[in-house]
């Protein structure tokens, strides 16, 4: 039962099959690598004493009946499950259990999603993400297939685009999901380092279509301190210094809510600074590749100090305007007044207000925590100008999976 204990340690997460939906096709039983699934003439059932929650049976199930996880004090026996005509009443779910069974990742997401002002939900049309396929103990092995700087050299902002190739190991991801890495070595207290989450910056079908790889956008953290020393981030420096061919363990994938709606009609407003652009690069690539006729558009509000410090400045110039409307905003452009993302949003108040009023608009905010307050204030004003109350609009959008915040 390893890994099935939940965070309180008092209940078990038991894997169950919904007998009302199951068609007894035997796929799960044939797929299970450890023979945890069995059946009688009535039902297919999972033996709680054997199941290790590896999830191998989840994707091949044609009905979705297989994907039920109950928090129970005492697991249901096989005989109990055989006798069921339907699942017993579902016990209450602990918050975030679905987002990440990995407690470490769950805690990181709880922090990152705080700015949304309530529990996050996935867009109703988003593809179903796969999560927790690999953990700390058995990470997926990836090879560095590329590591290039995407900000101009000479600037203080050293942002890297890192491509990780998974070879023959399936590592299915969706745009907006994250992966976890653990830097090698031990921390100051002699324990392994904490896991870091990084947003995936590529599309679900790989950095190039059909490749089994993904990209990350990593900023090298090197901050001067008051005492004259420089604080160097352990994980970011390790990642930025990786050489092509190096291998590393990757945990995850994680994240079940910060996902792209699967409807070309949906307008998507993406607000970010710095490496917060990573998921939006994935979104943009996805939309560009499926290239369907749809009325919806991507709207990017992207802030940086200067064009030289804006990650992916070059590639962004090549994205067709019919896919992506770009508002690149600079706060340290020589000879120009400081402009922040929220300033540009106010300048586009009419357009953003119209988007807010549309029922299929999705808003995503990603970047440093400091971004939240300014964006929230700007949206309050934009909404007010159309007679809408932003906190109420925001709550409704969040409920419908149309407002997402991931900040750090």
């Amino acid at each position, binding site marked *: 039962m390893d890994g099935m204990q939940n965070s309180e340690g008092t209940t078990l997460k038991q894997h169950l099959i919904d007998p009302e939906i199951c068609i007894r*096709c035997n796929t799960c039983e044939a797929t299970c690598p450890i023979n945890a699934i069995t059946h009688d*003439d009535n039902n297919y059932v999972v033996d709680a004493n054997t199941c290790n929650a590896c999830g*191998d049976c989840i994707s091949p199930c044609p009905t979705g009946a297989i994907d039920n996880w109950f928090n129970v004090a005492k697991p249901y026996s096989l005989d109990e499950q055989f006798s069921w005509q339907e699942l017993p009443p579902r016990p209450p779910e602990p918050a975030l259990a679905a987002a990440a069974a990995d407690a470490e990742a769950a805690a990181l997401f709880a922090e990152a999603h705080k700015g949304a002002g309530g529990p996050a939900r996935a867009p109703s049309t988003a593809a179903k993400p796969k999560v927790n396929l690999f953990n700390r103990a058995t990470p997926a092995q990836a090879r560095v297939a590329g590591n290039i700087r995407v900000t101009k050299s000479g600037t203080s902002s050293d942002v890297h685009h890192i491509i990780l190739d998974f070879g*023959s190991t*399936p*590592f299915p991801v969706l745009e907006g999901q994250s992966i976890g890495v653990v830097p090698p070595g031990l921390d100051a207290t002699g324990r392994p380092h904490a896991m870091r989450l990084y947003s995936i910056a590529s599309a679900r079908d790989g950095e190039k279509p059909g490749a089994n790889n993904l990209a990350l956008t990593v900023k090298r953290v090197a901050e001067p301190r008051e005492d004259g020393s420089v604080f160097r981030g352990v994980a970011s420096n390790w990642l930025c210094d990786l050489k092509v061919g190096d291998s590393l363990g990757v945990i995850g994938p994680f994240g079940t809510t910060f996902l792209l709606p699967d409807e070309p009609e949906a307008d998507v407003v993406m607000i970010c600074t710095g490496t917060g652009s990573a998921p939006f690069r994935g979104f943009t690539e996805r939309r560009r590749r499926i290239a*369907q006729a749809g009325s919806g558009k991507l709207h990017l509000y992207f802030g940086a100090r200067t064009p030289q410090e804006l990650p992916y400045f070059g590639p962004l110039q090549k994205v067709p305007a019919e896919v992506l409307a770009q508002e690149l905003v600079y706060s340290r452009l020589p000879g120009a007044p400081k402009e922040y993302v929220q300033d540009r949003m106010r300048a586009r108040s009419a357009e953003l207000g119209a988007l807010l009023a549309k029922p299929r608009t999705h808003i995503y905010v990603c970047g440093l925590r400091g971004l939240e307050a300014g964006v929230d204030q700007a949206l309050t004003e934009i909404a007010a100008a159309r007679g809408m109350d932003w906190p109420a609009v925001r709550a409704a959008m969040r409920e419908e999976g149309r407002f997402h915040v991931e900040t750090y």
Partner: protein
Amino acid sequence: MPDGMNVNYDGLIPNNVDLNSDARVRKALETWHPGYIDWWKDMGPEGFQESLVYLRTAISVDPKGWAKFDYVKMPEYKWGILLAPAVPDRKIGFGHHKGEPAWQEVPGEYRSMLRRLLVIQGDTEPASVEQQRHLGKTAPSLYDMRNLFQVNVEEGRHLWAMVYLLQKYFGKDGREEAEELLRRRSGHQDTPRMLGAFNEATPDWLSFFMFTFFTDRDGKMQLEALAQSGFDPLSRTCRFMLTEEAHHMFVGETGVMRVVERTCQAMKDAGIQDAHDIEKVRALGVIDLPTIQKKMNLHFSLTLDLFGSEVSTNAANAYNAGLKGRYREDKIEDDHRLIDSTYPVLRCIDGQVVKEDVPALSALNMRLRDDYVVDCQGGVGRWNKVIEKAGIAFQLKLPNVAFNRKIGEFNKIHADPEGRVIDAGTWGAKRDEWLPSTDDNLFITALMQPVDTAGNYANWIAAPKVGIDNKPGHFEYVKLHD
């Protein structure tokens, strides 16, 4: 992670069998490919070749990366060659060669027998696509339309799977058989498909659901028996096909269930208690339960014919040779040779149905059919739960195996659904009580009006409990006009 799990999508033919280093087979498949695409365009779903369909494509045979969902135009679907991972040191599990290492090449002595098994299996796959090609036009929802097309593209892939084996292991003979698979046509007077049930029309959606429930379930049993094969490439091919076949049975079981559910709901709403008050029920625009029973009688009996003769030396030979096992052979506890054991078989002796013990080896078709009937019973039980919940006094029931049979022991007699032998006159008089009549079919056909607004369903069928890929109700599963 063992090699061979991931699928190479770079070339013309996605595969996990390293086609790139097998120039001979690659060339054979590439030569066959245009003919296949022509066949798909001629005989595949009519009128929807340009629509964007939200389909599942296998991207890896490893369960973790099993499949992805995306919008695809059907002619651009990635049909590929996918084999389940090899089991190291696999041994032949039954028959004369039990315990010997599984064959990686075709054993010469069984060459023609194996080829025959592959061709028969392969022939059913394009046949069902042909049978269902007109259904898109009358789909009761975009959800159902998408499920139909998913079934169709996967049957197409199953054809690929058999063609790969033919071309890789049977040289010129295999290439000719592969061409023939594209040449035969379901229901064609001169060049029909090989098995009877695959030459019957699938005229309406209730037939489609019954077909996917009953006939694809036979497909599952046959594939499972072939997955036991001592010829390892066949075993691996069929193991992967089974994971796809599961979706087809899902479409059938839930499809019939949704029809039953809608009928019961409409009866309840209208205060109709008597399921046999057919006119009143039909006036509600739903399919009455007795007609559903008749459709069931038809498809169940047609499918039983696919199991072949109850007592069969062909089946015994294939088992002895280690080519085709029993359903879940690996889970059965016996000697796996069946030399001295017997199995009870229903036979027709002097015009009466009697049970007789025969050598187990020659009763393999019967055994597979018995397992099949038990499997079907499970689904029928679930449909009955829906009726029971609605408080309607009616039960759907599988007819007796002797009912309406064209192949095997009972092909010379007439039997009623209870299995009682009757004379031809009685059969003629009662036939329309047991099997769909012309009027029944006309009524059903009249109901088949297309509904193509996302989230809406035709009046005669309930919405599904959960969407495909967890999509919400209003999701647009097929984009018709892009």
